[in-house]
């Protein structure tokens, strides 16, 4: 199939859905971004936010003639639980680069949630806001109803004990072996004796298949082993909220599937709110109870995974099916 044929198919499909032309003719009339965005907004009826209120870097990611938030329906489907973490109109910029631009959603308690979206769209920044490593420029982040940006340092450190975080590369301490890495939070935050700490660490390391690597230093481990060791360390204090920053990146499909199984097993055993950031749709299908699709610093749509996989939203459908043609291009 040629590119033109694929384009025509996509245009027909969207016209049938919305009655609108999703990829209008290129505009070369010298009009401002504002005028073009307002026209597109009027066409889609989804947003009327004027372009001069939308950061330039987000406009740059937008096709000519489309509104940047044309596909952001703002639908936040009921997930049947309370929110462990809430984002309330969060905005965050780094210099001139706006990453989060009015983020609103909640992470449900007791479920495995996945935040998915294109690269560079603010997923990792989202996680850092939850644990207070970054603060919003505007808006608020609530953890169990308490505002993170307004916490005093001591309260923040106390609140962080609720969290376990698995970083992309495990973030193991290079000066400690695997066992000491996993034991570190227990030694710092509990009065447990070495024997009990040993039992807990060995159990966690057995769960992640690293029982034979206790004495290995992080630089002796493969990428997958580092992730698993990081997973064991994230779980060792039985946290109420566990965050996984792209646990599947750099793993082969089988190891990814095994890691997903492990996440489900551990969640079934411990409960709590698990948040997984990923690009991998297969992982989302396997693991997610709840999905939030993030793009251009806002949620396109969020809700129970089963509902989102059947969403009529063109962007959500394109992203969850991994198709080349659709609202998301190389912009």
């Amino acid at each position, binding site marked *: 199939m040629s590119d033109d044929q694929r384009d025509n198919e996509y245009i027909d499909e969207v016209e049938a859905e919305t009655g609108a032309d999703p990829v209008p003719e290129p505009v070369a009339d010298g009009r401002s971004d504002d005028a073009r965005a307002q026209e597109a907004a009027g066409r889609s009826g989804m947003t009327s936010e004027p372009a001069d209120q939308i950061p330039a870097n987000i406009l740059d990611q937008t096709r000519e003639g489309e509104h940047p938030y044309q596909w952001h329906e703002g639908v936040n489907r009921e997930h049947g639980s309370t929110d462990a973490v809430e984002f309330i109109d969060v905005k965050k910029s780094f210099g001139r680069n706006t990453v989060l631009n009015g983020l609103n959603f909640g992470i449900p308690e007791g479920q495995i949630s996945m935040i998915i979206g294109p690269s560079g769209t603010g997923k990792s920044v989202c996680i850092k806001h939850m644990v207070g490593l970054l603060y919003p420029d505007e808006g608020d982040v609530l953890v169990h109803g308490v505002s993170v940006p307004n916490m005093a340092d001591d309260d923040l450190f106390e609140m*962080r004990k609720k969290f376990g975080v698995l*970083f*992309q590369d495990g973030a193991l301490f290079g000066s400690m072996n695997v066992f000491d890495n996993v034991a570190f*939070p227990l030694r*710092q935050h509990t009065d447990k004796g070495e024997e009990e700490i040993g039992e807990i660490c060995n159990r966690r390391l057995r769960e992640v298949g690293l029982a034979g690597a206790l004495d290995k230093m992080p630089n002796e481990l493969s990428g997958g082993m580092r992730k698993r060791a990081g997973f064991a360390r994230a779980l060792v204090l039985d946290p109420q909220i566990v965050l996984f920053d792209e646990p599947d990146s750099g793993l082969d499909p089988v190891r990814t599937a095994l890691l997903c199984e492990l996440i489900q097993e551990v969640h079934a055993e411990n409960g709590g709110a698990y948040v997984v950031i990923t690009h991998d749709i297969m992982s989302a299908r396997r693991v997610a109870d709840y999905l939030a699709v993030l793009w251009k610093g806002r949620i396109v749509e969020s809700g129970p995974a089963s509902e989102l996989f059947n969403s009529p939203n063109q962007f959500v459908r394109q992203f969850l099916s991994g198709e080349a043609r659709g609202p998301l291009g190389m912009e």
Partner: protein
Amino acid sequence: MGSSWLDVPRDWMASLGDIAKFSWRVMAEVFQGRALHFFGETLRQAGILILGSAIVIWGMAFILGLTCGIEAAYFNRALGAPAYAGFFSAWCELREVLPYAFGYMMSAKVGTGLVAEIGAMRISDEIDALEVMGISSLTFLCSTRLLAAWIVLPFMYIAAVGAGFFASYLAVVEQIGEVSSGGYFLIFWMFQNPPDLLYSTIKGMAMATVIVLVGCYYGYTAGGGPVGVGTATAKSMVLNTVLVHVVGMLGTQVFWGTNPRAPIGG
């Protein structure tokens, strides 16, 4: 808006302000006793300092003492006063050569090591990992290192002074041999007293404190991947070299600027 010639000095001032603020926070964590919550880590860092730096610092001090002793012996012989060779060791070594040498070695060995170690932790998310475990990374990484330096380095410095003095004695009395041991020590002790050793140690410790804080700052704030860590290491070395001289100059002015504390020349 175009850049002006004022941008560079303005950036320098901003950086110095950041370093001062950071240093104050690190020292405050030590003075408030928070670093003691991680006393195990403090002892580990003290051990690393002793095992990694003591031999290097003592060895360098010994070599400098030997060199100064040889120069002192021949220079004073040329002046017809070989017995005054001990004056060099007592005066110049204690007050200037050893503090500066200590500062240079600390900058090169400890300061750059801190930037590389903490910077590598920063870019590999280890510092973020500490934070999300509910542990203050500033206290755990920086205040413990400063406290370890304060615990270990005075002893290491005084031992280095001893190594330098011993080397000078060997050069002047045993190697060149134009002055007796008693004659050497008569002049040697005439030109120094315990407060001089205290002042010299204060100079050395002030340099060490500055070097540890600058190293921690550049490591803690490193960014931009491995290249960024390398750049931060180079920057810290440059700043530390400048600050070692500033501290050395201020120390000499304050402690001996108005009173040479010597039986001649005052």
